[in-house]
């Protein structure tokens, strides 16, 4: 079915273009809430790309973690500041030209690296399909130690935030 494959290819490129447009919106729009929404759209676009590349699990996790949690957290942060009223802020300052120069250099470097690296497409790589079950077995078997370490770090972070956010004990009256 060459026509469907062509359509899928064009669709993927269209999604990439849309992601880029939204990503540009994140760094240029003046209203911070609009920026947060653009970020959400760009992240959802990335998830769509993952689906197009047959990585449904990664796509679901991307939406769950980034759109469901991180963007919501950002919106919570916006709610607690004066930007809630829709005040506009400048997104650039005198250092912008320097930053753009640095960025262009980085992009050039990346392009060179990408072009120089051979990207071997082997038969085993094409057939490799990581199922959710295999992922779970790897997490609970081969990589159980890093998994547990990450859990402990997360728990420590949670307890840390509670300790920081806790109200100080009222001072005793003299």
């Amino acid at each position: 079915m060459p026509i469907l494959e062509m359509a899928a290819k064009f669709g993927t490129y269209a999604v990439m273009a849309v992601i880029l447009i939204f990503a540009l919106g994140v760094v240029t729009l003046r209203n911070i809430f609009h920026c947060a929404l653009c970020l959400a759209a760009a992240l959802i676009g990335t998830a769509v790309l993952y689906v197009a590349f047959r990585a449904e699990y990664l796509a679901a996790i991307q939406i769950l973690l980034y759109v469901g949690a991180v963007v919501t957290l950002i919106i919570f942060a916006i709610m607690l500041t004066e930007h809630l009223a829709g005040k506009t802020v400048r997104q650039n300052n005198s250092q912008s030209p320097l930053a753009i120069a640095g960025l262009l250099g980085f992009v050039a470097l990346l392009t060179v690296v990408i072009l120089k690296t051979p990207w071997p497409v082997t038969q085993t790589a094409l057939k490799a399909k990581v199922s959710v079950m295999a992922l779970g077995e790897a997490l609970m078997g081969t990589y159980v130690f890093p998994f547990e370490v990450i859990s402990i770090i997360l728990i420590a972070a949670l307890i840390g935030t509670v300790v920081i956010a806790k109200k100080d004990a009222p001072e005793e009256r003299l």
Partner: protein
Amino acid sequence: MTKILEFIDSIFVAAKAWILCLLGHFLPAWIVVLVSITISGVVILCLGPVIMMYLTLLERKLIGRIQNRYGPNRVGIWGLLQPIADGIKMFTKEDIVPANADKVIHLLAPIAIVVPALMIFLVVPFGKGMTTVNLNIGLLYFIAVSSITILPIFMGSWASRNKYSLLGGMRTAAQMISYEIPMTLAVVPAIMMSQSLATNAIVLAQAGGHGLNWFIFTPWGIVGFIIFFLCATAECNRPPFDLPEAESELVAGFHTEYSGMKFALFYMAEYMNAFTLCGIAATLFLGGWQGPFLPSWLWFFGKTFILICVMIWFRGTFPRFRVDHLMAFAWKFLLPLTLINILLTALWQFTSNLAAWCGSILVLGISLWTLVKLNRTFVPEKRHYPLES
């Protein structure tokens, strides 16, 4: 007899296959693939709104009966055309946008909220072989997509530039995030026992026992089901968890500034969410389309509509929660209970006999009692100030 039952059971699947076969004779293969996608898509796009329309009627009728009145009964017999009259009214109403509103986002919010509500329909197994997309991560997809619902609600509330809308939006964000966690954890036992994330496989894991081998008939199943159902009620902002749109406090919450069709879209998303959440609850714990005698899709819709009726019953019965009680209920009661439930399920995996039954009921009883004791609200002792002359 059994042949007739089997035919009725697979009537929708057979109809689709027949249409595709017919087209396959004179159309190229790639068009047939597109047509197959289109048929499923169109069915879902029609099913969602139609279900929503008649859910509103069902809700008004039932609430009417609970409150000792008839409910809508003027348009058509038994008021069956009432949803269509409502639709015409919504279409012809004036669309009011506040002068200071953020016009673009104000417009986008009601459109964006319908999308995740419709997307969840894709993984709901309506009957044997009637899952639209049999994703192998179906349940994770459901959790991920339903977590997006917060964003459009907050967009609408923020773009309205109205204090009531904003308060409603903030309450929604806090409530939905809080209830998402026990909901996700309540699903885990069902995943553990069926060893799959695909909704279809979870239904198949409950096969056997004359179609009555449902997860709800186990101690962890019933606890998981109750927690999931309570969280589902909170997720679609229905009473008694309807704080985001508490009409006695916030006018109408996040959709205060919406009218006409835009308001109808918010309403539509809410009812479609109620339907899909009940459908997923039926899939996870009530055996999905499994059941004796009747065709599979009838079982699925029957279970789902019974759950929806329970939701409506909740609305007619319970008073609204207070904000702090709502949060405390999710974090201090449901969350520990789900964790205990996951532990129980792991034990159940190894032994499931009478001793296991007694053991799990004992553990659940003790943990419930402890949680209730720990969650007791602090009531200060009544003080007396005797009047002394």
